[in-house]
């Protein structure tokens, strides 16, 4: 018995040693710039059990009448999507609670000016028609692929859909996801982890007002696909001089490792390869302006991952210095009175206002 125990302990000790060794290898090779080892591995293919989304559209021989009838049926069914239960607004917001994010689209970049005359670059993020589809409580939520086995303070999972589409184009199984909520099948689905107090009933509409003006957000998007790139563009290597006798080596990586006992190429060595088309997050971006008619947020900066007209996920910022000082609309903003079309942050200059004049001298 003790022999068996000894073996088990020995094995576990070995496993632990291996883990530590692996970490050492990775940390030896890691430069401050390269954080991709700590990032989640890119999921390049969907698992086979994932619900098939698009239906193969065979030539349908529906008559014009029937087509119109189908359209009528769909529009009647989904004319008025209401939340299935009353949203609980009695909860007092505190900084520990986590609200949902939104599925948005990056629609462009243009400049705005502040009251002190400084120019800022702002990205326009259009909040698509986000509807809550489902809520999975932390006890129920058990995804087949987990990054970490044990999670402290497990959060509930809110599934949100964006951009309504014709259910005729989707498979029955995909439409089944939306059946219980009464929401029209959406083109895009996303998971947002929320604290159980921030639960929203299925059918709730989320708009740009979910984020107050002046609030800081993190935006996650898929970076522009740059294809197969060399080491200079991909990792920022300096290359070699263009002249002065350098033979046939101008953009190559140079040395890829040392010698000695561990004389091999370490795993994680920076080399040419595919660049882009990965999820990255821009953190701590301020919202300068909101348009309530088109549900557009003006967010600082122009370095949001992704190209124009690409999908983007917006969350409340986790940056400690950019935490909100005033209470946020919790669990989400409830539309009551009529809102002004444009809401500006106090520091930003509205184009409808007069030119900036400096009256008092400092």
């Amino acid at each position: 018995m003790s022999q068996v125990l000894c073996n088990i302990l020995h094995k576990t000790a070995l496993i632990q040693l291996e883990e530590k060794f692996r970490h050492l290898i990775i940390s030896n090779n890691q430069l401050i710039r390269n954080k991709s080892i700590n990032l989640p591995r890119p999921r390049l293919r969907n698992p086979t059990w994932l619900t098939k989304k698009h239906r193969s559209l065979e030539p349908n021989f529906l008559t014009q009448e029937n087509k119109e009838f189908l359209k009528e049926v769909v529009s009647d069914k989904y004319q008025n999507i209401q939340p299935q239960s009353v949203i609980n607004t009695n909860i007092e917001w505190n900084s520990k609670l986590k609200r949902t994010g939104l599925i948005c689209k990056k629609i462009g970049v243009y400049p705005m000016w502040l009251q002190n005359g400084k120019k800022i670059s702002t990205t326009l993020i259009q909040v698509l028609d986000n509807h809550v589809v489902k809520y999975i409580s932390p006890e129920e939520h058990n995804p087949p692929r987990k990054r970490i086995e044990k999670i402290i303070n497990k959060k509930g999972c809110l599934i949100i859909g964006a951009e309504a589409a014709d259910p005729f184009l989707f498979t029955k199984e995909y439409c089944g996801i939306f059946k219980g909520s009464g929401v029209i099948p959406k083109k895009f689905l996303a998971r947002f982890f929320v604290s159980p107090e921030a639960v929203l009933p299925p059918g709730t509409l989320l708009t740009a007002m979910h984020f107050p003006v002046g609030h800081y957000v993190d935006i996650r998007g898929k970076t522009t696909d740059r294809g197969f790139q060399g080491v200079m563009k991909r990792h920022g290597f300096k290359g070699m001089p263009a002249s002065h006798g350098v033979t046939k080596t101008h953009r190559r990586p140079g040395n890829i490792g040392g010698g000695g006992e561990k004389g091999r190429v370490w795993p994680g060595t920076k080399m040419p390869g595919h660049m882009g088309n990965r999820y990255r997050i821009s953190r701590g971006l301020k919202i300068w302006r909101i348009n309530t008619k088109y549900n557009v947020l003006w967010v600082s900066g122009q370095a949001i991952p992704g190209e124009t007209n690409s999908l983007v996920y917006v969350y409340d910022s986790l940056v400690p210095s950019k935490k909100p000082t005033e209470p946020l609309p919790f669990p989400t903003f409830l539309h009551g009175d009529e809102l002004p079309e444009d809401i500006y942050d106090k520091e930003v200059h509205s184009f409808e206002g007069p030119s900036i004049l400096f009256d008092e001298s400092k």
Partner: protein
Amino acid sequence: MINTTKNFVKLKTFKVFNFRNVYRSCSTEASLNNTNEEENATQEGFKKSFAEYRHIYPEFLPDPEVKLRNVIREKLERKDMIARRSQIAIPEFYVGSILSVTTSDPHSPGKSETFVGICIKREGCGLRAKFILRNVIDHEGIEVLYEMYDPTIQKIKVLRLEKRLDDELLYLRDALPEYSTFDPNMEPELLVEGAPVPVNSLKVKLKPRPWVDRWERKNLQGVQDIDLPERFWVKAAKVATPWEKYDLMKIYKKTIPAEEQRKYTMKSNHNCKS
């Protein structure tokens, strides 16, 4: 796409951009008299000038890069541009016009700075529209870049509205200083209402080389005869049509006898007819 919720307005196709409320100010007597009244344009007159709007308001044209285009972004951007134009009059001007721009400066006496100069370049689309003014003050050539929709700009006044033979006048940097000198206290020159914009066919004399750029390669209309050795013109001709080196038929045609060359041209004519 089926819009099911009340909060989402169905987007109308944005066919014709309504400029009726935009104040088109050029230095005309009429505009000086009635500064803030709407132009009472008849339907016909409106249609005629609408065709010219892409020249008068080039920054309202859509982004040349198709990847960056988005209907809602363009709509919001143009709305902001119109809002700014309702605050100050951004007049019609072209490269070659003389402008006076007053900006607010926190550390200047009187809190504002005025600069007068000839517009040598105009670029950018949407709110990023920019223009460069050039002037020679105290024998020192000075250029200032202004962003058209910058809210610190208090006033943009056109002192002389005219066009030049070129789209960009960057060669004025290498021209004799007299061609870039304009009086900072210049009075606005008035034009007859409704007259076409005058084209100044001035031919500028350049200083001897070295230059900022290779002006002999740019086919400049507004420059006097450039006196350079033959090799410059030979190289300019070579560099002017870089696609010709891939035109194999053209190279081949030069090698065959004249009769067969004619055959090729006759064939191409025949194809055109059919």
